[in-house]
Every structure is written in C-alpha cells, then in structure tokens.
C-alpha cells in the first residue's frame, strides 16, 4: 500500500462515450481490448510513478447517477482530477461538453484538473468531430486535450498520467492543500506500512507498477 499520494479522479461525459471502457483499459491491462467484446467498469485503481514517486490513482465513474443532484455535486467535490470524455463519432456528445464543464466548474474545487478526451479515435471513418475542434475547445476553456481509443489503448495511459502529472505539479506549487482530503488528494500511509504488507500484495503492486 505504499504510495506517496493518492489522487481521486472522476470520469464524466455523456453515456456511451466509453468512459467505463477507458477506465478498465487504464486500470487493468489484463483485459485485452478485443474486437467483439466491450467491457467497462465503474471503479478502478492503479499505481503509477511520477518523478520517482509512487502515486495511486483511484478512478470513479459517475455514470448512472446523474438524476441525483446531490450525488454529482459530491463526486465533483471529492475529486482532484476529471476526465471529460466525448465520442468523436457523435457530434452531440461534443456539443454537450459545455454543460458538463459548467457543472464541473460549479461544483468542483477550483484547482481540479480537467482533461478533455475525444474517445474512439480508432473509428476514423465515422469521425464527426475534428481533432482541431477538440483542441480549440480545450484551449478556450483551459483544458488539456487528447484523443484516445479505449479499443486500441492508444493514448489511454497518457491521458491518465498527464492528468496526474498536472495535479502533481500543482501540489509542488502549493496550490492544492494536501492536508485537506476533501480535495481528492490523500497523502500515503507512512513508509513503515510497506514492510508489514503481505508479500502477495506487494508482488501484485510491483506487477501493477510494471505495467505502466
């Protein structure tokens, strides 16, 4: 369980844009993306390394809870990073970004790092939203932008890790109050915990670290 920081992420965006697939793709490499199988998950965690520090990412998919205002509100508040996902083959998911962003900005703490993700970049032939449009939207709203494919795993790593890097930088700059867990950032347990943990779980961790 040894990590320097734990960052909590949320994934937001219209239904069907591939949020939970992105999540599974990032958190569990063993589920190989295959042609006739789409698997997603609502929660996942994974260890990454930034600047020589072990950082645990905990990602919560907020799908299906939009009908309760209190729930979305709380989710936004509890996260340090958010992946705002749209589907490049569906224009409407791109058009709804403004609403999502407004929601996020209203409820989240002002330091939350938001990454804009155009998913399903493998479906080039059915593309409806140009890459440039995504870039422009991101520029306009001060977001980081990336096109990904949960299917081919292209850019998935980068999306999550770049977001984490940005959060990490903010911590270094002292923007985030890391002692306040409400920001979605947690300082890891003391180093002593490393020794006491089970060999099995340690092995799993190393393996997890190895796959990034």
């Amino acid at each position, binding site marked *: *369980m040894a990590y320097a920081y734990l960052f*909590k992420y949320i994934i937001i965006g219209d239904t069907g844009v591939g949020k*939970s697939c992105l999540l*599974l793709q990032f*958190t*569990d*490499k*063993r*589920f190989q993306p*295959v042609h*006739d*199988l*789409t*698997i*997603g*998950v*609502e*929660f996942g*965690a*994974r*260890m990454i390394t930034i600047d020589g520090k072990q950082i645990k990412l*905990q990602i*919560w998919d907020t799908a*299906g*809870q939009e009908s*309760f*205002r*209190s*729930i979305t*509100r*709380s*989710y936004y*508040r*509890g996260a340090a990073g958010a992946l705002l996902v749209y589907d490049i083959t569906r224009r409407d998911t791109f058009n709804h970004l403004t609403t999502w962003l407004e929601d996020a900005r209203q409820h989240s703490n002002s330091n939350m790092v938001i990454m804009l993700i155009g998913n399903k970049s493998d479906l080039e032939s059915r593309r409806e939203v140009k890459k440039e449009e995504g870039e422009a939207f991101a520029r306009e709203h001060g977001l980081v932008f990336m096109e990904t494919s949960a299917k081919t795993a292209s850019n998935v790593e980068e999306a999550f890790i770049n977001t984490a890097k940005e959060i990490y930088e903010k911590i270094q700059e002292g923007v985030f*109050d890391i002692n*306040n*867990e*409400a920001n979605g950032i947690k300082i890891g347990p003391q180093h002593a915990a490393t020794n006491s943990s*089970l060999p*099995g*779980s340690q*092995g*799993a*961790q*190393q*393996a*997890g670290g*190895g*796959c990034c």
Partner: protein
Amino acid sequence: MFGRSRSWVGGQGKSKNIHSLDHLKYLYHVLTKNTTVTDHNRNLLVETIRSITEILIWGDQNDSSVFDFFLEKNMFAFFLNILRQKSGRYVCVQLLQTLNILFENISHETSLYYLLSNNHVNSIIVHKFDFSDEEIMAYYISFLKTLSLKLNNHTVHFFYNEHTNDFALYTEAIKFFNHPESMVRIAVRTITLNVYKVDNQHMLHYIRDKTAVPYFSNLVWFIGSHVIELDKCVQTDEEHKNRGKLSDLVAEHLDHLHYLNDILIINCEFLNDVLTDHLLNRLFLPLYVYSLVTQEQSEDRKITPQVSLYLLSQVFLIIHYQPLVNALADVILNGDLSVFSAQAEHNAHKTSANVGVRRFTKPPESLERSLEMSRQRGRKRAQKRPNYKNVGEEEEEERGGVDEGPEEDKAKGTEASSKGSRTSGDTEEIEMVVMEKCKISDTLTEQNITDEEKSAARAEGQQSRPFLDMVYNALDCTEDDYHALFVLCLLYAMSHSKGINPALLEKLQLPAPDQERASYSQVLVERIIRVMNQAAQPDGKIRLATLELSCLLLKQSVLSGGQCIIKDVHLACLEGAKEESLHLLRRFYKGEEIFLDMFEDEYRSMMSKPLNVEYLMMDASILLPPTGTPLTGIDFVKRLPCGDVEKTRRAIRVFFMLRSLSLQLQCEPETQLPLTRPEDLIKTDDVLDLNNSDLIACMVVSKDGVQAQRFLAVDVYQMSLVEPETKRLGWGVVKFAGLLQDMQVSGVEDDSRALNIIIHKPTSNPHAKPLPILQANFIFADHIRCIIAKQRLAKGRIQARRMKMQRIAALLDLPVQPSSEVLGFGQSAAASSQLPFRFYDQSRRGPADCSAQRSVFDKVPGFAVAHSASQHSASPLSSPSPPSSSSGSTGQCDSTVTTSTPSTDACLACILPQSSSDAALESFIFILHFCLPLCSISLACLTCDLCPLFSSSQTRQRWPSARLLCPPPAEARGGGGARVPVPVPTRADGRCSSACSPSQPCPGAQPDAGRPAHHLAAVRPNTDALSVDSLTLLPPADPPRLRTFSTQSSLQDDAPPPPPLQLQLPLQRPHLEQEDGRPEQDPGPQKEEEEEEDGEEEEEDEESKEATSSADKDSNEPEPSQPDLEGSQMTVSGLAIPRGRLLWPRGRV
C-alpha cells in the same frame, strides 16, 4: 495492480479462442482442482476468476450457453468458497472486481436474473471483508452501488426478502453512511437513493419500519456534528486563515441538504414523514432555530446566530418539500420558545423517556447496533408467524415494540429514543402539535384587519415571536452588515420557497414574488431602506452584495403586479438614500481617464452579473466577519472596499443600484445609463451619409495579413472603417466600428505612412486581460495623411472620453468642462457650443441653490434618448432664421403643433438653449403663450426645464409672468388628458421612440441621427421624469412634512409653505424606528402641524385612493409634469406659490 507477467496462466495450451464455452469448461476444471487457496495457486485462481468474468460478458453478448453452464455448475459457489477462506486481499480484490464487471456489463435481463437467482450475491454482500483496506472498501462499495443501479420492481425481490425481513444490500450499505472516505459516503448515498426510488410498497414499508428511524436519526446527528464543527471553525477563524476548511464544511452541509432534498423529492410519503420529523425536531428546530435566540453564555447554545441564519437560508434555498419547510418557516415567523418547552410537556405524560424530542442529541446507539436490534426483533416475530404478510398488522406489532424501546432507554438513562420500533404514530402526534400552534397564531393574526393594525399587533406581540424579532433586529447595520446579509438571504429564500404556503408569508406581509397585494411589511421595508441609506454613507459598512439583496427584496416587497405600492414616505426616504449616494460618489469623482473606465466597468459588471442568491449562499467566505482586505481573495462585492480605487468603485456601484431602484419603483425607464447604448452606436453594415465627413483613405492590414482598402472616418464616440456604397453617391457602408475610447494608436517604426491601431473590447472584469477586437496596421497614401489620421484619432479619443466625462459630471450634478469642439458627421457649430453653455449656466448657480440645481441637473443630460429627440427637431434646427423674432418662432410652432406633440416639444426645446438673450427668452415665452392651449403638457415640461433661467432672480423679476405659464392644475387635469394620448407612465422618450425608432437612423433624415445631440436632448427628454424625483430632490424642511408633502393628500393641504429650501435629508438621522413606520417627529412647532395632518390623513388617504382610481381610469392624465412645476417653483424664493395647489397627484405609478 495485477501483473501482466502472470497473465494467461490458466489459458495456456488449451484453446486458442479464450472466448468460448470450452474455455469456460476448462476454467471450471481449474476451479475444481484448486478449491483451497494457497500461496502457490493464488495467482492461478485470480487469473481464472478474471478469465471467467471475461467469458461471461462475452457470453452475455454472444452465446447464452455460457451462462447456462455457469449456473449448471453453480460456479458462484466456488467464488464464495474462495472468499470464505480468508484468502487475503489479492484474491478478494479480484473477486470484487469480477463481480463489479459482471454486474455492470451484463445487458440481458435473463442473464442478470440467473446471476441473482440463488442468493449467492446476498451472501457476498454480508461477507465480512477487511474494510480497513481502502481498496477492498472501494471495490466493495462500488459493487453495492453497481447492484443498486440494477434495482427495479422485479430485481428488488432478489435483494429484499419479505419473509426474513432482510435487505442486506441496503442495510450493509448504510452502515458506511459516515465513512471517513468521501467517495464511500457518496456511494452509500447513491445506493440509498436508488433503493428509495424503487416503487415497491413492501420493501419501502420495511425500510421505514426497520431502518428509517435508526438511519435518519444517525444521519441527522452526523449533519448536526458537521454544523457544530463548522460553527467552531467560524468562531476561531476571525483572521480568514482557515478558509479551505471552512468552505469544505459549508460545501459538506450543502451536500447534506441536497441529499436530503433528493430523498424528499423521490416523494415516498411515509419515508418523508419520518425524515421530516427527524429533521425538524432533532436538527432544524433545536439546533438551527433555537440558536437564534439563546444567550451567548447559555449552554444550550450550540451555534452562533449568524451561522444559524446562514444555514437556514441554505435550507430554504435547497429544500422545497412543503410539510418540512412550511413547518420550519412557521416556527421562525410565528413561533416562540414554547415550541421547545410545550413539546417536552406534551411528551411528558406519554413517555417520560421522550422528554427531549426537540433536542439535538446523539442517538443512543450506533446505526449498526440499531439495525441489528431491529433485525433480531423482526426475526423473533418472523419465527412466530412465518407467513406474515399483512402490513397493517405488522405495524400493530411494531407498536408492541415501542414498549420495549423506552424501557431500555430508561435503563440507559438517555433522553431520546431512536429505536427502530418507533413508528409514524409518534411522528404524526409531534407534527400535530406544530400544526396546532400554527392554528393558534393564525387566529391571532387573522383578527387584525388592516395593515396598520397588523403591524401594530406585531409590535405588541413582539414577545411572542422571538425568532422573527431576532431576524428583524439583525437587519441593523450600525456596526456592520454581518448578520444583515444573512437575514436578507433568509427572507429572500423563504419568499422564493415553493414549499412555503403563501398565506404564511402574507400574514406577515412578507414579500412573495409574483403576487398581487396591496400592502407590504413596513417594518421590513423601513429596515431595508435604512440599510440602503447606510450603504450610501461615506463610512458605511454595507457590502455591495447586501445592498443588492436589499434592493431585490425591496422591489419584491413593493412591486405588485406591475404596480408600485410603495408609500410616499418610504419612497422619499429611498430618494434620500439615492441622493446620499450621489453625494458620496461626487467625493470620488475625478476628471481622470481611469474614472470613466471604472464607471463604465462597474456598470457593465453590475448588468452582466446580477446577484445570484443561491451562489452567494454557497460561498463560505461570507460566514466570516466582513473584511476589507482583498488578500483574502473574497469577491469585491462580498467584502468592504480597500483603498481609494475600490472605494470609488463601491461608491459608483451604490449609486447605480440606488438609482436603478429608484427609477424602477417609479416605473421610469433608465435614460442616461449606460453612457453608450449599443443601439446608438454605428454598427457594421450600417449605411451612412458621409457627404460632410472627412474621410481618409487607407489600407488596413490585419494581424493575419488580410488587406483591405477602407476609408477611415471618425465620429463622436467611434472610429469606423467604411467602403463606398455602390448605389448612393456620398454614402458608405460601415465595415468596422470601434469605440475611440478603447483605442491605442502608435506609429510603425519603419514606415512613416503607417499606424498601428488596437481597439480593445470593453470588459466588465478589471483584472481580465483586454481582448482586442481590432489589431491592424493602417497604411496611408503618404506620411502627411498618416499624421492627420493620427491626430484625428488621438483627438477623437480625447474628445470621446471628455464627452463621456461630461455626461458623468452631469449625472452627478457637477460642473462640466466645456468641450471646444466635437467631431462628428454633419453637425452644426451651434450644437457643440450649446452643451457647455447649458452646463455652465447651471454650475454658476452656487451652492446655496444646489438642490434646485440638482433637480434640473439630474434630468439634464439625457443623452441616451437624445437622438430620438434630435430627429424630431430636425426641421427647426435646419431652419435658417434663428428664433429671435417672435413671428418666425410662432410660425414654426404653428406648423409643428399641428403635426404632433413630440415635435412641438422638440421644437420648443431646440429654441430654448439658444435663447440666452433676453430677447430670445421673450420670444420663447411668447411661443409658450401661443401654444398653451394646444400643448399644455409640453409647456409644463418646458417651463420646469426653464426654471434655471427663471430662477435667477434677475430673470424672475423681468419675467414675472413666467408663472402664468404654468397651466392651472385643474385645467391640466381636465383637458390635458384628452390632448395627449399617452398612458400615464409613458415618458417623453417613450413617445419619441414610438414615433421613430431611435436606434435606426432613417435614411434621408439628419445624418447625425446616430450621434446623440446633447444640446437638444438636454432639454427635452427628461422633463417628465422630473416629476417624481423632484419630490425628494427638494426635501422638506422637516421630516414630518416630507410625508404630507409627498403624499397625494397634500393636494388639499392648505398649510403655509415651509421655507423653500433646506438641504436637510431626512434619512441622515434614523427616523424609521417609530412603530407606526413614520419618520420621527421633530419637537417644536412642527409637531402641532403634524398632528393636524395626522387627523386629515385618514380622510385624505381615502380621497387619494379615489384619485388613484380615477387616475387609473383616465390614464391620459398629464400627471408627471405637474410636480416639476412645483419643484421649480419651490426653488424661487420670494415667489411663493402655495405648494399644495400645484402639487399633482402622482398616482400610484
């Protein structure tokens, strides 16, 4: 976290296609061989389980036989078996992930039923995982959440067992309701909401009977503990050092309220009853409301009143559930402390243990234990009567359980009983007490019939409404507006609450939006006006947000169905406050460029960002005592100003708000702000007559290299780039127009023929980076033309800014610098010279006369409506002969009068400024005489505008007959209405704009249509507007007079006029404390008079009502003009005309 290196251990060598039934069979084989988890097979098992997940999902999407096999072999049992072996975190996490994936990705309902059918899932739910491991906890709660998302009327039966009264999914989840990890808490809340959403009566009955009381009482305690923590944070953080924590606690409280609201709006009735009972009697009343009145040193006091007010505002803003908010509002508005004691008595004879029902107390036992107990009780009975179905009977049994509960409680010596067995029977009784109380207070108040009596009753019955008293008293801002802001928010929130019965508010005459009413709460309005007055003081401690909210509430109170029902005395006080703000702003006025920018910035930000109370109440920073330092990062409107710049900004904003309020209450349109209306400006694609304009040809090269041949033209406020119109000679089409004031011109280093021009977009945020709307190089034919252009632009910029500064000065009644020359399309020399003259004339009048000066000044500039007037005045202006000979003028008037009244006004108006010589004045008066029968209204307006001329005593003596110009009121009342077919509230500009759209320069009309013609407009457009303002602009000698003076009743008032000019503003002293809502009376001779008037007032009131109604019928009455006359007459010393005679009923405009 799972290594790829260990992947596919189980998949080796068997089948190429891992997504197949065969592979599942192989995996099954692996499971049977490894029923015991060891260190050696751990990885193999994990991978096997993972692969099974994948195949099942694949099967769900492609091959149903996979599921059949899974069920047939009861493979879930293997999972459980592995789980129960304490196999360690690694395996647990894998199992939970598998289950998560399984339930989330299954799309076929039958597959789902298969998975749920043999109760294995419930066994997994109740399995005691190691919840201290945060990853296991996260996967577990996600698993429950995933399951809860699958709940519906059918699937609920797999989770809720009617016979055993088990609902593990729900009961296990709520045990984590106060988990330290926020994501876990959110998941729990999601699960509960998903459960409540399922419309299954049996399940919901179970929830209510077995779990609702333990859960809600613990939840309420949890929320209350946060509130107390929040309060501690506020009390220990006067220095604003711990803002992060405070804002988290506030956000947390908001989360709680939103969650409660989400439950309430699912609208599951009996669940809501329990929740409402707990919220009211264990949280809102004992903790929030009770804290409003408890003494500081009292032990009972849990939180400070300001925190309590703030939180209550949030409650009313978020929760709209009628039974809850109505009962809560009723206690605040009508209740007294017996709410707490009576409750205790009421319960005393029933069960001694329940004494503290309305107390904020910790539940006697943990939620987990409560659930356990209630479950066991359920079991016992279930064993007794296994086929128990009847819900009604069950309740009966439940009541049997009540006896158990209190006994236990007694034994424990705790006050509250939160046994799972307490049912809605208790709840109803508790609510009935509240209702009874309402009824009593209802009857109390309903006996009072009139408004006055009502407020008197309120004054008498003050002891009985400690909460309301506290609320009203907290509006006092003598020291600061710390409490007042919250009170205003609370009142706003209550008046906007959909859940509060309008009758409840009406009883106290509280403002409810969109409701017709004839009266308003005088206590409230007076206190609000006092806040406003304090805001206008130089050292006022009122924040802008408080002022804006005051304005909102005041408008809500006195505007009813498009009508303003404000009493004249209140209006007068308000006008006084507005005047104060004007004085305040004058102190900060500087002839510098930055003042103009600030002035316009503030106007824009006021208009673009109106106050949002809900957002305001989300901001934790207002919970701390008001501060002035910007270092706290608090928004400017939510703190006090710091330094001169901010003080200036604040003064500007206060002035804007009070001015706008005053105009709105008098149903007058704003005619002077913003300084430039967008519709008055030249816009792209406008077609202009450029025949008399100086144009310079140039090549415009924009930043991205696009070139275009354009002509540069400089107008009053704008520079524009035009290209020739193809059809009309001498006309041009505008391709770009930008404000000169926001322009930067600089030379280009290596090209003497070129200029670099940047025009920024005006922003409302002073800190935002200005956004350029034009950034281009202008290349001219030669360097001479370049220099000319540069000079012209520079001059135009200065000129434009100066003009605006003049208009600000005029708005503030300050002396104005004359502008030597004004650039613009097709303007006449006379035009530019008249403006300064007029202002000069006013400014020379000295301080003694300054109220009179103000009354005119306030109205003079009117540029915004200016050009509509200028269009009408087109013909007289272009007339070659100046109106110095009476015959010429008469002729002019003749012709215009026959056409339309507005043009008559304009005609006269345009003569006026030029009539600086006595001869001209003579001719002017002649015109007035001549036109009198035809256009009495316009004349009246004009006369009063003329008053500065007349009021100089010299002129007065020479033109004593000027008085005659004023049409006798009776005549005007009778006849004027017929002549001017405009409804009462319509102002001069309204008429003009209907005659010709002001924004569109009509082709063929004067080309200067787009440019405000100040000299003309200065006279004409605001004449009507003067009417009401002048009442306060000329405050009476003493406060009591103010009332008589300004009420309609004074028509009949024959009292001798007080000294004509006294600059005593009634609101400089707090007069409003009087119970009857009238200003404090000055001792001395006035008192007698006042009493006299008092006597008259009642009759007069009635009469005035008649007058009002008749005014309503005859809406053509020229009312507005009359008080002007009165106002101007007042300024002329020695020419006393009984004021009362001239006063015109203002009507309830």
